[in-house]
């Protein structure tokens, strides 16, 4: 059976991971490659790297980093942050990324999704959707959510489920859905939102934002019907260790991949 995926997310600025990551057993936790290798050994199913470099001049360092990650890491990884064009994506895929994630640019220019799907295949096009609760979008009995861009700062006036359907029709291969209301709270994922979006499209949904306990993961897979769950700080700060989380999920009836240390010789 297809396993539910656990995806640690690493924010990268000028080629270094940010968010004071506390790993005593790593020589350099600021080195995204070292940290990625650690998560891969722990049994992460995929990795996501978000470039939060402020300046365009330093974007080149991200491409170099993607190349170093591809040299070292033997599980799939997605890269995103600041992607504006088909040629940006070409460079990142050539550098060895398996998938790219696109967010603000997709809202500004939705046709880029179709262009990317045509040129590189839907399987590598992840559309990231940041949403906030907005009662203006409520319809009889269901809570309305609005799409936001620029790291959750700018409202777009777009209702989230219609946007999800639209980008899926355009050719997105996967949706990374983040509730900006839940992000950073550690109070759990936006389970209802995740489920509503998942029910309205037939591409996989990665839930993000709000993970604080192992039960939150069970909940977003069970009730939220997510295909994957992404989290950052709870992994970076060792609040939850991936091997422990996977065993917990398996014991709660969720199909997960628990890698053996090494296959038998």
């Amino acid at each position, binding site marked *: *059976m*297809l*396993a539910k*995926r656990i995806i640690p997310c690493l924010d990268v600025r000028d080629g270094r991971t940010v968010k004071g990551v506390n790993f005593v057993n790593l020589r350099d936790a600021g080195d995204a490659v070292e940290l990625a290798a650690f998560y*891969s050994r722990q049994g992460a*199913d995929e990795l996501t790297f978000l470039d939060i470099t402020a300046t365009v001049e330093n974007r080149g360092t991200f491409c170099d980093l993607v190349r170093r990650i*591809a*040299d*070292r890491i*033997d*599980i*799939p990884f997605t890269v995103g942050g600041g992607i504006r064009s088909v040629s940006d994506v070409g460079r990142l*895929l*050539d550098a*060895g990324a*398996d998938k790219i994630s696109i967010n603000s640019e997709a809202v500004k220019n939705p046709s880029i999704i179709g262009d990317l799907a045509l040129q*590189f*295949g*839907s*399987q590598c096009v992840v559309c990231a959707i940041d949403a906030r609760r907005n009662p203006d979008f409520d319809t009889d009995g269901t809570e309305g959510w609005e799409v936001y861009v620029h790291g959750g700062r700018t409202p777009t006036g777009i209702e989230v489920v219609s946007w999800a359907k639209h980008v899926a029709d355009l050719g997105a*291969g*996967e949706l990374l859905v983040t509730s900006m209301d839940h992000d950073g709270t550690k109070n759990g994922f936006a389970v209802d939102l995740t489920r509503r979006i998942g029910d309205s499209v*037939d*591409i*996989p949904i990665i839930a993000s934002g709000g993970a604080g306990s192992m039960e939150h993961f069970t909940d977003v897979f069970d009730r939220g019907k997510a*295909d*994957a769950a992404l989290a950052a700080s709870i992994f970076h700060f060792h609040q939850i260790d991936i091997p422990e989380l996977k065993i917990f999920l398996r014991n709660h009836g969720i199909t997960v*991949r628990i*890698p*053996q*240390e*090494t*296959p*038998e*010789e």
Partner: protein
Amino acid sequence: MVAIVKYNAGNIRSVLCALRRLDVDATVTDDPSALRSADHVIFPGVGEASTAMSYLRAAGLDTVLTDLTQPFLGICLGMQLMCAFSEEHDTPCLGMFDASVRRFPSGTGDKIPHMGWNTISGFDDPLFAGIARESYVYFVHSYYAPLCAGTIATCTYADTSFSCALRKDNFRGVQFHPEKSGPVGERILRNFLAIR
């Protein structure tokens, strides 16, 4: 020397990186004599069947590949192109394996493409030496090869049991991505390179 077939399909770099991690010398080439003289040949592939086949035919690589006699491994689209036919744009393929590639049925409740980690089982081939049954490997595909005489490993998705590895003589193919399947995938690649 390991030769990776150079053509218009993705993931060549991932395969090259995986071989480098194994300290294996590999060359990416479409030169017939380099392909014929390699100890092992890997035929990767991410993309669409008809575009890939047109390219291979135009480059004259179709007959070069089918005539090779050393251990040969197709990956993902590479494996599908080694079958006789693909439903993807009704494409006649290379035909090393007597199988017709089909699209996963819709309406089973399972999303297409089949993407992520799934378990493989039922194998009996040196390619899978030391690999425990129900090991997880990474898949990304919408088309599959049905079970057939050449099946050496199976997987199930969308209510369909399919060939996730095929073999005919020196030719082997895997539907999953060993280069992205962690330690299990690494062992499968090492097993392939140990085949003489």
